[in-house]
């Protein structure tokens, strides 16, 4: 661990976190905070997706299920059992990770397109469960009363607390990505991503590693989901398990450069900015998914390495610093 403190990249991540914390805080800029909150959410989702996609080479179309399920468990604990926010978030994340480990050991026997399809199946199954599970309010979902913000010092202050927590989750996601990438576990995952059969013959315990990374990629998105839906004070199945957010996370990871930590974060930030612009502009309102689709096509066809692939090829020396 101490070894990591000497690496420049460790401090680059710390700097990004500092910018996220300070820039809206200094001017008390609420609008900037909301935009950065979404950027932090996208970075969290895309970074964790990247553990599967960029490292282990498995396309997870259903990464949103971690987010949605985390949101549900957290909101439910807060609403029905009056749990405080932080324990609810942690319990939600542990439950979702455990479920992912369980499902992972099963569906990760599949490869390629079959695995990708099964991840969509999981989203559909969990959504159907949420729609029919009475304690979760069925298809009408769960509403939180506005009094839930009182323990955090009222709504205005609560929004700041939620924002800082989301930035913390983003920071942890980046460190997790970085830590795994520079570890033996990461080396094994990269080998699986390149050639799973060869990796197994070299001794990489493939079933266990795949299930472990699937489970690890569930933890922080579940917390992000808890924060997001706690903030909205409302959760319903169609929002929680919206497949388009899964697709956007994939676009973001590909845009930035799958397998890289920097690229995925950069891609998420740029995509969120673009999305914000498209959503607020008169002409392009609700056009962002079309743009996302077109972007994905262009990247796959012309820039398979994404932004980082481009930067690395232009400035090879950056490879020594950035991950």
């Amino acid at each position, binding site marked *: 661990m101490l070894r990591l403190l000497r690496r420049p990249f460790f401090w680059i991540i710390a700097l990004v976190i500092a910018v996220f914390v300070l820039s809206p805080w200094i001017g008390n800029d609420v609008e900037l905070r909301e935009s950065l909150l979404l950027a932090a959410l996208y970075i969290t989702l895309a970074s964790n997706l990247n553990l599967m996609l960029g490292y282990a080479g498995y396309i997870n179309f259903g990464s949103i299920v971690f987010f949605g399920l985390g949101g549900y468990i957290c909101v439910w604990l807060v609403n029905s059992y009056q749990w405080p926010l932080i324990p609810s978030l942690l319990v939600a994340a542990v439950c979702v990770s455990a479920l992912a480990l369980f499902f992972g050991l099963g569906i990760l026997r599949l490869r390629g397109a079959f695995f990708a399809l099964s991840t969509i199946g999981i989203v559909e199954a969990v959504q159907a469960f949420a729609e029919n599970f009475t304690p979760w309010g069925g298809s009408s979902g769960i509403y939180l009363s506005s009094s839930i913000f009182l323990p955090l010092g009222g709504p205005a202050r609560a929004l700041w607390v939620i924002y800082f927590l989301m930035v913390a989750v983003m920071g942890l996601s980046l460190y997790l990505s970085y830590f795994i990438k520079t570890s033996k576990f990461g*080396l094994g995952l990269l080998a699986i991503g390149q050639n799973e059969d060869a990796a197994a013959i070299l001794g990489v315990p493939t079933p266990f590693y795949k299930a472990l990374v699937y489970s690890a990629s569930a933890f922080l998105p579940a917390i992000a989901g808890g924060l997001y839906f706690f903030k909205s004070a409302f959760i319903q199945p169609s929002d929680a398990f919206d497949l388009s957010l899964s697709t956007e996370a994939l676009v973001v990871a590909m845009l930035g450069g799958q397998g890289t930590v920097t690229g995925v974060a950069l891609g998420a930030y740029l995509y969120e900015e673009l999305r914000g612009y498209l959503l607020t502009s008169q002409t392009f309102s609700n056009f962002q998914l079309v743009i996302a689709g077109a972007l994905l096509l262009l990247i796959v066809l012309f820039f398979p390495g994404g932004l980082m692939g481009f930067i690395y090829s232009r400035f090879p020396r950056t490879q020594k610093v950035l991950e």
Partner: protein
Amino acid sequence: MTALLDVQKVGKRFGGLQAVRDLSFEVREGEILGLIGPNGAGKSTLFNLVNGVFIPDSGRILFAGADLTGKRPYEVARHGLARTHQIVQPLTNMTVLENCMVGACFGRENLPLGRAREVAREAVAVAGLEDRAATLALHLTIAGKKRLELARALAAQPKLLMLDEVLAGLNPTEVEHMIGVVRRIRERGITILIIEHLMQAIMSLSDRIVVLNFGQKLAEGAPAEVARDPQVIEAYLGDPKLAAELHGSG
């Protein structure tokens, strides 16, 4: 010499094809055992059975006192058994050194990253790839990829190294170099089981030879003995020119 690998009455069937039938042989500690036979004789299937890619229908596979029958490939690797592939399987987007680090990290010793890097460097050097250590595996020539297979298997610090046609597709100079590498590996005390079609090479490398035909053992013995065995000449060599070549070298 004691047996390091003991294959006991192993059989494997694929649908209507009995790929390996009731096959028994042993690889003794420290030797180079050559495995020859015509195409489709079951040589590569045997490798896949030994290292857990396929599970045998019958028989047992013992290795250094442990029963490997039915074990997964990554468990087999932990026991100290490494192999190369006839059709090279590089981890394409990783460097030569990283490829070898995977072998070192997850092989017999289960090394941490730092130690694995040192062992990998050494393996890269033995295979003669020092100047390619930082090259992505996909940029290597076919000869380079063959050497990478060897370096990666070596980095696992195995007790037994299984080489599946490491000489195929190489030009004469490269073949000579590779034979030198194999000899150096044996000098380090690693036992070798080698499949090869290049007769002269395998006859001069091997201490003993096992001949397979239709999934069964046809003959076993010293290279010169095997080459004179009338059954081998008839069933496998057939071609008198090839027989002459063998006698020339044996």
